[in-house]
């Protein structure tokens, strides 16, 4: 143990003093100990399972929010209606400088919310009143459709509580019938099936119902806020209830809490790009001039190898 530290070449194969070691035994013991720990933590703390939301639960729990969102889909005023790529061309997407990666990738998951979330599901209904409202809607020009729907959407939002409004002058066109009918479909659970089976009869893709749900003005975000999952609650790294979530995403979540990211319309691409650069930095840390010297300046290694250093001096 009197080997001088200055003679250690980390690139050479070690030919100094050794100690006994059993790799297989160590691994088996680790699996047993960690396995016992995982089994015990699971038995004591279990895991969360908040039931998934459905169109039906939305319509029943927050009917006013449902009809307002539906009118918004027809009016083209919701988030998904103006999203842009990869769903449609109604939005610009996000930029980092002159670069717009979402536009470059293009519209690969085409979704027209008014058609996909409202009109197409209603086509499955045989009610003559619904069919005549659909016929009136489809025969109108896009400008007239937008005027009917936005007028009704504004009125519903202003009212705040009603599920439908009287229209003696006909200024809303078929929109009240369409909205009320979709609400009826949602209340029975038929809309859940219609949205998920529109592309496949055995669905595994929930893009349409989830995008529609994400347009909700209060039902979906309020549920999330109650579970401290909102963005301003560091929700990215949280889990429902009091269970630990993806705490390793703390740095990703941090940027959304501070300026200039917090109020930027391009926050997502800025944060993702920054995390990409930081990840590259971690990957190439050994060749970065200043950061790679930190372990030499702050000698935590003295603690890690304290026995070795002590014996070497002796």
């Amino acid at each position, binding site marked *: 143990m009197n080997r001088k530290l200055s003679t250690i070449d980390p690139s050479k194969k070690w030919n100094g003093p050794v100690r006994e070691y059993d790799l297989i035994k160590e691994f088996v013991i*680790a699996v047993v100990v960690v396995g016992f720990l995982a089994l015990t933590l699971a038995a004591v703390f279990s895991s969360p*399972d908040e039931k998934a939301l459905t169109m039906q639960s939305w319509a029943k729990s927050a009917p006013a929010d449902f009809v307002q969102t539906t009118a918004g889909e027809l009016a083209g005023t919701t988030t998904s209606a103006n999203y842009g790529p990869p769903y449609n061309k109604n939005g610009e997407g996000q930029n980092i400088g002159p670069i717009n990666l*979402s536009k470059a990738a293009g519209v690969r998951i085409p979704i027209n919310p008014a058609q996909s979330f409202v009109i197409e599901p209603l086509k499955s209904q045989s009610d003559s009143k619904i069919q005549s409202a659909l016929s009136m809607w489809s025969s109108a020009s896009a400008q007239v459709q937008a005027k009917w729907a936005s007028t009704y959407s504004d009125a519903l939002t202003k009212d705040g509580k009603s599920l439908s409004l009287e229209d003696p002058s006909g200024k809303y066109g078929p929109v009240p019938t369409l909205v009320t009918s979709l609400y009826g479909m949602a209340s029975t659970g038929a809309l859940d099936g219609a949205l998920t089976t529109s592309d496949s009869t055995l669905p595994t893709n929930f893009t349409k119902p989830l995008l529609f749900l994400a347009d909700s003005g209060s039902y979906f975000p309020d*549920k999330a806020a109650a579970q401290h999952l909102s963005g301003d609650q560091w929700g990215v790294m949280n889990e429902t209830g009091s269970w630990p979530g*993806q705490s390793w995403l703390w740095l990703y979540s941090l940027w959304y809490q501070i300026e200039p990211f917090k109020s930027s319309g391009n926050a997502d691409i800025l944060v993702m*790009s920054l995390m990409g650069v930081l990840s590259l930095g971690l990957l190439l840390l050994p060749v970065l001039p200043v950061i790679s010297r930190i372990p030499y300046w702050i000698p935590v290694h003295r603690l*890690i190898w304290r026995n070795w250093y002590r014996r070497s001096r002796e």
Partner: protein
Amino acid sequence: MSTQKVTPQRSWTSRVRMATIEKFEPEDLLPDHQPAYVASWIYIFGVATLAAFVMLIASGLYLTLEGPAWWHSSKVGHYVNSVHLWSVELFFVFMVVHLWGKFWMAAWRGRRLATWMTGCLAFFASIITGFTGYIIQTNFDSQWIATQAKDGFNAMGIGAFFNTLNTGQAILLHVSLLPLTLGFIVVWHVILVRRKGVVPPIEEGGK
């Protein structure tokens, strides 16, 4: 019948053998001794990470055999899901402590850059694999995470190809491509650790 002359060094098989198996001594791969300086609590976290990986693969395979929605209606399923969750939590705790330990040891010294980089790649692959696990829970948490995360992926142009709202796609990624990728990186990392050996202490004077 003439005998064809074979040049072993030029065959694909011999090249692969020379680049892999012949690079190792048997005692490097399965050692029964270690340098004397490998004696600290920090070394536990590397093997603990691997042990947690074994646990999460085992619990994940159980969940895979029964299907993605089984755990909502079965007490056994819920427990297996809990084991999977806590294995993932332990896996990340151990991995992060291991990573910090290696940073303070400047463990990239002595031509161990590839070892450091494969460790980082394993960390990144684990984050992506863990994320896909969170969006296939088929409950409220997965709905919320999927709808929020889509914006980041869409902004980067990735969402056009990896749709977080397509649960079927996420399930297949989580149980096939991603764990295979992560497993490959982990094996690569461990082989590099065995081949290069454990980095020795930093010299006095900080070289």
